[in-house]
């Protein structure tokens, strides 16, 4: 092997090694910071996995804020409501200021983890258009209803969200 080729080979090997390390780092960082989206039904039936149920995994809970479920003790920052996907409901607790578009009967995506039977949210996302439902939530809820073959109260909203 002549010196030029040898130098080139070393360069290529170094580049491959650097790319490999970079890819590993990216994969690790991604793995650690990914939050899955689940519906209340998936959480309650255990479909989402044991780590979601026992509170070790941070995940995003998607669905509609159930009608007449919102309550907040006078003068308190802690809000309690239930998130529904039409099949199941999960109680949610959130301490802090609610997003402007947070309302009952509207889509919400909450990030947090389970503590006992309650989902404790660190962050709430409600979209800034009231007719809009996040596509991923609409998809999820659509899937759930096809699977159970139920006519869900939220299916209109889901359809609207998907085609809007």
């Amino acid at each position, binding site marked *: 092997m002549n010196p030029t080729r040898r130098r080139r080979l070393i360069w290529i090997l170094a580049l491959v090694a650097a790319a490999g390390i970079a890819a590993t780092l990216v994969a690790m960082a991604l793995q650690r910071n990914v939050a899955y989206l689940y519906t209340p039904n998936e959480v309650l039936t255990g479909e989402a996995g044991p780590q979601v149920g026992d509170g070790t995994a941070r995940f995003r809970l998607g669905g509609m804020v159930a009608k007449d479920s919102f309550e907040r003790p006078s003068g*308190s920052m802690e809000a309690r409501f239930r998130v529904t996907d039409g099949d199941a409901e999960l109680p949610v607790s959130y301490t802090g200021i*609610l997003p402007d578009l947070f309302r009952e009967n509207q889509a919400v995506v909450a990030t947090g983890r389970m503590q006992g039977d309650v989902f404790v949210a660190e962050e709430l996302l409600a979209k800034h258009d*009231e007719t809009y439902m996040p596509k*991923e939530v609409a998809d999820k809820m659509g899937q759930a209803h096809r699977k159970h073959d139920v006519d869900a109260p939220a299916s209109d909203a889901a359809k609207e969200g998907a085609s809007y």
Partner: protein
Amino acid sequence: MLPELGQVALVLALLVALLQAVLPLVGAHRGVAPWMAVARPAAYAQLALVAIAYGLLTHAFITQDFSVGYVAQHSNTLLPMVYRITAVWGSHEGSLLLWTLVIALWTAAVARFSRSLPATVIARVLGVMGVVAAGFLAFLIFTSNPFARLLPAAIEGRDLNPLLQDPGMIIHPPMLYFGYVGFAVSFAFAIAALLDGRIDARWLRWTRPWTNIAWAFLTLGIALGSWWAYYELGWGGWWFWDPVENASFMPWLAGAALIHSQAVTEKRGSFRSWTLLLAIATFSLSLLGAFLVRSGVLTSVHSFAADPSRGLFILVFLGLVIGGSLLLYALRAPSTLDDGKPFSPASRETLLLANNLLLVTACAMVLIGTLYPLLADALGLGKISVGPPYFALMFILLMAPLVLLVPFGALTRWQREQASRPLAMLAPWLVVALIAGAAAFFLAPQGPWKVAAGIFGAVWVAGGTLRFVWSRLRANGRFTPEMAGMILAHLGIAVFLVGALLTEGLNRQREVAVAPGNQVTLGDYRFRFDGVEKVQGPNFLADRGTVTVFDGEQRIAVMHPEKRAYAAGGQVMTEAALIPGVTRDLYVALGEPLGDGAWALRVHVKPFVRWIWAGALLMMLGGFVTATDRRFRKPLTPATESTR
């Protein structure tokens, strides 16, 4: 009648764009001069036609013509005049029309300022711009017609999204589009060079100002978006790693790399194929950004209407443009010989290579994080989102070495350098920066690592850049605009580092329930909540809070955060109150009523947050100043080739 005229103008503009795409490209290939000569007049005609269409849509908004569906959707009789004009780009159809107008403007500018280029080159460049314009015009006409009639006409319009009724939002989208679309010029040049089969350093010199201007506009657009999100969304954050923010940030990173690699190629002839590839990549990322925003495939706080047919159209267009240009690159690039001068490991070329590698890797990292949810969804791995910590971690890992290298770039000679020379020049500054960083570490009341890193980085970059200024002053005291632009942009990095890291490290924030008379203490500041009253605005009804701020015992300001309910759409929106300052911002946002006169209140003290945007503005200024260098505009005679 007028809206139909607008539609006709758009269709004519599409035909002209097709003409501008086909005739000059074929003419340049076959060497038919009259066909090539079509390019310039076609560019002007396209601009005139799109401008007419744009003017007519604006007219429909001003006169409140609710028989036009788009106007009825996004305007309202209560809407103030200035927002009627800006509502034109308030949603998908109109902002796409603005996008095509910006393409037409850039194309006409290229046609106007390209007298010094050979006819075949200019024919090819304008031809490629014509292809891009035709794609977007077809997209506009076939999937998102802004002039579609609503029959019967609406009596009253819905409202413009209240988030967009804001001065920051008036200029954010146009500036962003000027940036995105501006990269089409360097893209068109790269394609022209590949078609031509050779890359002449003189033509490259001609494209450099265009790249710099586009990048400067994009910098401004992103900074405005960040500033707007900061004061308008009421969360007090300035960057969220939201997919749509990422969509604008990726071309920015690639564009920053392109600016540097173009400089190497123009001055030294090295990195030729890399510069071409980067030009293609930068514009492709702009298109990808458009696709991500328009198709609604990603969950983002920016939800433009998601229509599958639109997503498909733009995906196909994206595939054609990126696939076509990469195919051309694969076929032609190997034969365009890289006859750059050799350089040793210690040289400015090596440093700029490192700059490019780091910026491009950072861009790839953002791309992976942005597209990973789409990929996972397609593979059935579940619906996921990638959290900001991923981006923050990777970005800091990649940008830290870049910050360390910045001062060396300007002080290191081309081709061959004694590594000890720039090191000796910068060693004192390294010591100063380390001392400043250490001092900051011990003085910071909280977040010492971030504060120390911010101060160290800022002093190091600013000191190293000023070291270059000093050695120039001693040498001959002359600064070309190109150098001045570089100095400004690098100082911008230093200012930005102070802003970003000190804000993150020292930010104090509380969300509390307060009754009238209650106080919130944050550091040296006390915020007294004095209650809420109802206030009537032009098209909204607001709950207006009063918060009195004390610094120690001294009363310094009264703030009025608002919660607005817009009359037409019924939307509720937070309007935060701000007291800006050089060393800190005070920020108060009103939450919800909690009963008995109590309210939820979000209070921030954000040190040095303005420096973030000041840094971005310096970078923008750097881009514009560089573009004014006369060297780029010299007539392309062989004699100028040897000036450097």
